């Protein structure tokens, strides 16, 4: 029997991380398989959605964003938002050339 030490800190179990790693490996296999299937213009979208989901898993679980305070989450969202704005502005400029 184990005593629960500091549950408010990061989860201390190895198993959860190994599960997430397995999910990441499976997603890698899926993205390779999908790319070989030749589904035309959906290929890029599928690859990016899978990559984003993998990045989400790494951010929340491996980088412990889940157990950090709200401030960290807001920081990350703002940073990603600005990157998103750059993409939107760039492509709106590009499409009117």
């Amino acid at each position, binding site marked *: 029997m184990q005593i629960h030490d500091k549950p408010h*800190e*990061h989860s*201390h*179990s*190895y198993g959860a*991380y*190994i599960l997430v*790693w397995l999910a*990441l*490996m499976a997603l*890698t*296999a899926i*993205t*390779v398989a999908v*790319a070989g299937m030749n589904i035309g213009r959906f*290929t*890029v979208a599928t*690859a*990016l959605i*899978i*990559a984003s989901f*993998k*990045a989400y898993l*790494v*951010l929340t*679980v*491996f*980088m*412990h964003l889940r157990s*950090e*305070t709200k*401030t*960290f989450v807001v*920081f*990350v969202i703002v*940073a*990603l938002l600005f*990157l998103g704005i*750059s*993409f939107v502005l*760039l*492509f709106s400029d*590009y499409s009117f050339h």
Partner: protein
Amino acid sequence: MSSTEHIAGTHVHRDDVGSRMGMWLFLFTELILFGGMFLLYSVYRFQYADEFHLAAKELNTIMGAFNTAVLLTSSLTMVLAIIAIQRDQKTLSILLQLITIFFAIFFLVNKYFEWTAKFHHGIYPGSEELLSKSSGEILFYGLYYVMTGLHGIHVIVGMFLIAVMTRMTRKDIITKDSYVRLENAGLYWHLVDIIWIFLFPLFYLIT
């Protein structure tokens, strides 16, 4: 006055949350650095879609997928090294950190073979073989070398960073009660992993 002296002995002057937040702020600058390159990539890919598809056929998908697996696994061993130190399992933590470094070297060796194979086919920046191709293909390989090269530099930096952490763990500077340095090195390492998660499908999987 005497009461402050009394407190000073027991109070540890440390801010782990602030330390991690500083690391995250640094990671955002990395996001902008690579983000700019992804912007460049997206515009050129949009402009030269067919040439990009043609050029990407030359890349070894299996090698890319294998390296993805290597980096993902190294991320796992890194995070497990932190849990090990939290549980006061020093030897296990050091072992896991060394495995992470091993995977980093493994990744770089694969990259080395991949690049030299390209060089043998005459595909490197400024080569006659490459310059005779269409401009879209030249751009694809330009982006390929710059982006995977910059990522490779990050792998090397991360590897040395983890090596320093291993030394600190060995010398009991990183302990069960003070492991924020190891966490920050881990954050850097996971960011390097995330960048590769996007580089892999964008360069290797567009055939």
